[in-house]
């Protein structure tokens, strides 16, 4: 790769709003304890739903953002903004004199403002004379990235990848490329989702994709487990500030982790199911390793995508086996969605934040609800928190994400 297109990229800010907690530290503490953020949905509309489970953010959004922003932003954008504020404030870039034209935002979502869209549709069909004049602008998937660009004064580009469950990681990959190409000097990346709505729950339920384990919500999402039956929908947002390491060091910024590489491929297979052999998913992992210039043996753990579906988890396990070969014997594979649920477009970012915190702690987090393991899945899955193997001065972890439509994104994170 030409030198001008390679650069070490540092994490200088983290933000997280999710069912496990509403800061990176709170979310990671709960995650490390093995807590789960999944509960029964108690809204009246959910009463008759067989998959009435969800991972809800527990926050008074009016208290956090005020009446105006809560009125003007769909819930997914509210989460994105809150997480972005955390990351931005932590980075210290607001005091750095960074020119607006050198700052970009990449904030992904799976479906964007579905709550706004459906509320406005309900007004329309009920015969209301007026709809919200900004309903379209609130519902559009780029609403979050636009609001964040306004908040932090980013004039170097505001982007919104829409790649289903891979979006939150794809945003990070695009941020890496923007920095390596020196298009900008800093980029706030992330993903957000809030789609716990009757239409979304029923839609996924019709695909037979959701868990209906109502007797024990905390154990309802069971990635890699023999008795897994589907995922649980969650909401929230993750945000990460990235800049070239040389720039972070020059301004004495806190470097929390390094983004070593990214791999992106596509299955070209099916709108909703992954390629069963995970051929291109394996290639995304391999490309990420090559981009990071590390070997499979260097990786301490993989934070799997593993949503808890029968097909998806098996396909990912095959992809990991293909990419790692014999190195798989020494590799831990942990699945955060057993604790977190599935944040769709927010998953890749929130789970990256948790991965970074785990690398900082030198820990492979427990894979909650993953036992008894499916005998078809030949991975080492931690049933308790495990220490990272320290055989070098750095610890490395991979974050996988695979989205409906065949979007495969793998990221390589490293301790600072």
């Amino acid at each position, binding site marked *: 790769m030409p030198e001008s297109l390679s650069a070490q990229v540092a994490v200088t800010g983290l933000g997280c709003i999710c069912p496990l907690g509403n800061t990176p530290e709170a979310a990671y503490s709960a995650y490390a304890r093995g807590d789960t953020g999944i509960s029964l949905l108690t809204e009246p509309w959910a009463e008759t739903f067989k998959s009435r489970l969800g991972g809800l953010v527990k926050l008074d959004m009016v208290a956090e953002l*005020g*009446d*105006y922003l*809560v*009125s*003007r932003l769909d819930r997914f954008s509210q989460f994105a903004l809150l997480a972005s504020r955390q990351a931005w404030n932590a980075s210290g870039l607001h005091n750095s004199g960074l020119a607006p034209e050198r700052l970009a935002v990449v904030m992904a979502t799976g479906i964007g403002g579905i709550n706004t869209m459906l509320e406005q549709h309900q007004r329309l069909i*009920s*015969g*209301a*004379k*007026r*709809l*919200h*004049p*900004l309903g379209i602008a609130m519902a559009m998937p780029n609403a979050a990235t636009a609001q964040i660009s306004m908040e932090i004064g980013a004039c170097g580009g505001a982007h919104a990848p829409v790649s289903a469950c891979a979006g939150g990681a794809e945003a990070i990959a695009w941020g890496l490329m923007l920095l390596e190409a020196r298009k900008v000097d800093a980029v706030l990346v992330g993903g957000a989702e809030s789609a716990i709505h009757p239409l979304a729950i029923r839609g996924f339920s019709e695909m037979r994709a959701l868990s209906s384990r109502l007797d024990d919500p905390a154990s309802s999402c069971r990635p890699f487990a023999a008795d897994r039956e589907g995922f649980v929908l969650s909401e929230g947002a993750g945000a990460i500030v990235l800049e070239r390491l040389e720039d972070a060091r020059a301004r004495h910024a806190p470097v929390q982790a390094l983004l070593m590489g990214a791999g992106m491929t596509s299955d070209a297979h099916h709108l909703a199911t992954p390629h069963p052999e995970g051929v291109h998913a394996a290639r995304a992992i391999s490309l990420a390793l090559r981009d990071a210039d590390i070997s499979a043996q260097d990786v301490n753990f993989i934070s799997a995508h593993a949503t808890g579906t029968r097909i998806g988890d098996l396909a990912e396990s095959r992809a990991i086996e293909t990419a790692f070969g014999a190195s798989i014997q020494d590799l831990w594979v942990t699945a955060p969605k057993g604790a977190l649920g599935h944040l769709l477009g927010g998953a890749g970012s929130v789970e990256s934040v948790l991965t970074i915190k785990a690398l900082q702690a030198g820990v492979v987090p427990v894979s909650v609800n993953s036992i008894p393991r499916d005998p078809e899945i030949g991975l080492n899955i931690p049933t308790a928190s495990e220490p990272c193997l320290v055989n070098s001065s750095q610890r490395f972890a991979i974050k996988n994400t695979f989205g409906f439509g065949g979007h495969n994104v793998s990221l390589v994170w490293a301790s600072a």
Partner: protein
Amino acid sequence: MDTSAMTDDQIVAQIAGLIRKCVPDAQAVAIGIDSRLVEDIGIDSLGAYELIMEAEDLFHIEITDSQVEGIKTIADLIAIVRGPIVQGPNA
């Protein structure tokens, strides 16, 4: 919301709550019965239509497009709220 027993100040307070949703930093602005929507409160065109929608929902009234053009102050809006009731679909 039935305004027949409400004072002007009470209606102003309700409208101020709606304005907080439509105008950034509205809590920093003193809102009174004579406040001008654009010059004093800083509402923009989209915010104005949002306020109209919220007022129609809250007070169960219907405001015609010609009436909207004439709303320059809080007092103008209160006059419509108190005026002859045109029942909206949500009443």
